[in-house]
């Protein structure tokens, strides 16, 4: 994990206030109820759309912006656009997470009818692997695509 630059900061839990946790809990609960009610009223094909509703992202990005702003102000630095920049980075990550979410959904859609219901746990693990994979490809894109382009360039010299 640390080789990839990924770190876990338990300290961030202390900076999150109880009402921030409460907002996320209520919002998440409400969306799950709404998805269930819509599926009941308009059928699973419509209700299913809401399984990928942006339930975490808006609250998390807003909190991230707020924390970033407060952190800079406490250090006596003008926060400027730092809060929004941090939220934009968060959005870039969520975009990659969405691609992995599409893979999760295809996996469940195609394999669930013929397997055990517990397969959704495996699908959750697949989401994590796919999301981390997309993130790593983006992070090391210069190295990965650099190797590809140099190997393309290397071929003619080998032939010569």
């Amino acid at each position, binding site marked *: 994990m640390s080789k990839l630059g990924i770190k*876990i900061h338990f300290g961030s839990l202390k900076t999150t206030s109880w009402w921030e946790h409460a907002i996320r809990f209520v919002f998440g609960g409400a969306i*799950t109820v709404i998805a269930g009610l819509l599926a009941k009223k308009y059928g699973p094909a419509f209700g299913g759309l809401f399984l990928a509703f942006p339930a975490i992202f*808006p609250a998390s990005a807003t909190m991230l912006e707020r924390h970033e702003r407060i952190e800079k102000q406490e250090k006596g630095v003008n926060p400027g656009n730092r809060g*929004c920049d941090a939220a*934009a980075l968060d*959005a870039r990550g969520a975009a990659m997470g969405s691609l992995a979410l599409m893979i999760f959904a295809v996996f469940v859609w195609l394999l669930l009818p013929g397997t055990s219901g517990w397969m959704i746990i495996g699908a959750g693990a697949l989401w994590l692997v796919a999301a981390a994979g997309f993130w790593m490809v983006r992070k090391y894109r210069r190295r990965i695509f650099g190797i590809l382009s140099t190997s393309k360039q290397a071929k003619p010299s080998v032939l010569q």
Partner: protein
Amino acid sequence: MTQLVIRFIVGGLFVSAFAVIGSMLKPKSFAGLFGAAPSVALATLALTISKNGKAYAAIEARSMVAGAAALLIYCVFVMLLLKRTGLRTLAATSSALIVWLGVAIALWWGFLK
């Protein structure tokens, strides 16, 4: 009513758990992945499988592909709003929800209805 309360609690717990994991991770772009974690999906699918069966849940998952595509467009739209306009995060993320809704319903109308 009991079913709705259970849904609310299970959904709230899943969303909170993924949000807490995301908030503990660095760098920010990696933590951001958890903004699109299958939180509502896992909660709903688990409840649906136990109540309505796997075939019903699979139909929901098929539509979720469209929902996730809409989420991808939503995230890119929010990123552009934050980078190119002076909008604050709360305004950008909430106003863009209309984009998610529009794209998701359009995909449902075009391919899944």
